[in-house]
């Protein structure tokens, strides 16, 4: 809030002298915004066209086939697309929720307790942040297939819960947001350690945990390789893998293209809504891990 007011005052003072630079800055930023919005604009227009119009009419002129595309998409293999969306919500939403809780508990413990092996555990997990995913996907598949879990929802959910980066963020956030005196006071009042976590620490860490949730939500939603390797049954696909396989079939049936385009458009809406509504939680400083609410 204070920065906002400061900005306003400063802009007011500064405007007369620096306007030419301001004009150019605005132009560069708008150019950047245009570049970022271009594919989105295109998909919005393209989703209003049927397959014939897609290839034969001017790209930037919308048509009236959005509704028929939507009904065709919804009826594609008995509503498989909506199944994919529900699966995505389960993988990304459920996985990120569990991940945020686990990160919160672990981060709080690492920040507020002194115990043997603490640095070893934390450093091992930090190394995990830098460990390339390449190392993990194939052996994870082999190990899970040994216990018969490949092809199940668990095969995508379980590897998504552990997030070394989430634990790292939560530790820094716990150190800053949960004060030792509050924990001591709760202990003197006779609260158990578990009660302190649930009633005292977690509520104080809530804004930081929302950020961890968002990070992990995007990470899971973005992880194409894991579900692609783990799952064989297209009823369990997330929407990314589903649309990809649909595009693969489209190489032979261009009629699928308009379904893929409409499906792509619909799939980004929920995430964009989530982003806009939780925008303030994105103010994250990577180097210090601090979350600025």
């Amino acid at each position, binding site marked *: 809030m204070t920065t906002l007011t400061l900005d306003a005052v400063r802009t007011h003072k500064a405007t007369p002298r620096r306007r030419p630079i301001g004009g150019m800055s605005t132009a560069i930023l708008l150019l950047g915004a245009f570049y970022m919005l271009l*594919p989105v604009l295109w998909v919005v227009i393209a989703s209003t066209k049927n397959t014939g119009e897609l290839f034969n009419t001017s790209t930037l002129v919308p048509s009236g086939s959005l509704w028929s595309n939507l009904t065709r998409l919804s009826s594609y293999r008995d509503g498989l697309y909506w199944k994919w969306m529900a699966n995505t919500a389960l993988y990304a939403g459920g996985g990120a929720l569990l991940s945020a809780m686990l990160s919160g508990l672990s981060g709080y413990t690492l920040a507020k307790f002194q115990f043997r092996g603490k640095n070893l555990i934390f450093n091992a997990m930090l190394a995990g942040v830098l460990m*390339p995913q390449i190392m993990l996907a*194939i*052996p994870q598949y082999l190990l899970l297939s040994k216990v018969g879990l490949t092809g199940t929802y668990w095969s995508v959910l379980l590897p998504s819960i552990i997030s070394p980066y989430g634990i790292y963020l939560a530790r820094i956030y716990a150190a800053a947001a949960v004060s030792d005196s509050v924990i001591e006071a709760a*202990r003197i009042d006779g609260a158990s350690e578990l009660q302190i976590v649930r009633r005292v620490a977690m509520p104080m860490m809530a804004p930081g945990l929302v950020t961890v949730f968002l990070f992990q939500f995007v990470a899971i939603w973005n992880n194409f390789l894991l579900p692609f390797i783990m799952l064989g049954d297209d009823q369990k696909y997330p929407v990314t893998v589903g649309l990809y396989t649909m595009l693969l079939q489209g190489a032979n049936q261009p009629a699928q293209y308009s379904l893929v385009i409409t499906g792509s458009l619909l799939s980004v809406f929920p995430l*964009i809504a989530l982003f806009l509504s939780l925008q303030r939680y994105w103010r994250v400083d990577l180097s210090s891990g601090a979350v600025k609410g």
Partner: protein
Amino acid sequence: MAQSARAGGRRTAPYAFLAPAIVLFVIFCVVPIGYSAYLSLRKVQVKGLGLGLGSRTEVFAGLDNYRTALSDDELLSGVVRILGYGLIVVPVMLGLALLFALLLDSAQVRLSRFSRIAIFLPYAVPTVIASLLWGFLYLPTLSPFQGILGDFDPFAPSTVLYSIANVAIWGGTGFNMMVMYTALRAIPREMYEAARIDGCSELGIALRIKIPLIIPSVVMTGVFAIISTLQVVSEPMALRPLSNTISSSWSPLMKVYTDAFARNDLYGAAASSVVLAAATLILSFGFLRVVGPRAFGGES
């Protein structure tokens, strides 16, 4: 009694609280890495015609798989390709992110809220979906640029690298901008006032005060960008159905995937992935060593 029970709880609690994270970390991180390393040293030996039970046995292979991986032309050309790709993606993406962050922070711009949200927006689009969208834009029959570009084909062998790089830059710039912008907002405004009074221009303030102060953030985004660039797989894989200029071993990780699942050579794939992981770690730690001391001012 109650007092000592609580003290005991305080001693055991950290281990109990960390147990779920440790168990998951071991199962899904430590064990897979160890298993990869183990597999990379194994191979299948076929007895006789390779038919019947027990005719195929797994034996110790020493460093054979590593020799094969290191002399594999496909893997090598994939690595070279991806290094060139990284040399485009990382500087352009971080450069744009820094430029946008500085402009947004300068507070002289109009519509800054709109620009900030628009530039951040691609972060909400999954890489595979982003690749599909750009892929359609690259198709000559669908692209709105066909009039402007003439005969230019984004999927031609000489241009496909840039086309894939463009998808990555589009998807990554916004997030990195947000990280740098957050760092810029944390700088106390008074630091600029003195420079302004001394007649320092906005450009001078950006170059001499703002950039040096947010260098730690820039370095961290650089490390993460290097790691994710070397592992690129979603973009080329999702663009493949639309173009036949992208081979199944275009990036090293695609090659590992193809070896493991299409060619059923798990052992070779494991060796390649160990080599790639080692190379990634060397590059990212090397980057940190070179720029780290300067960036963090000796505190790390």
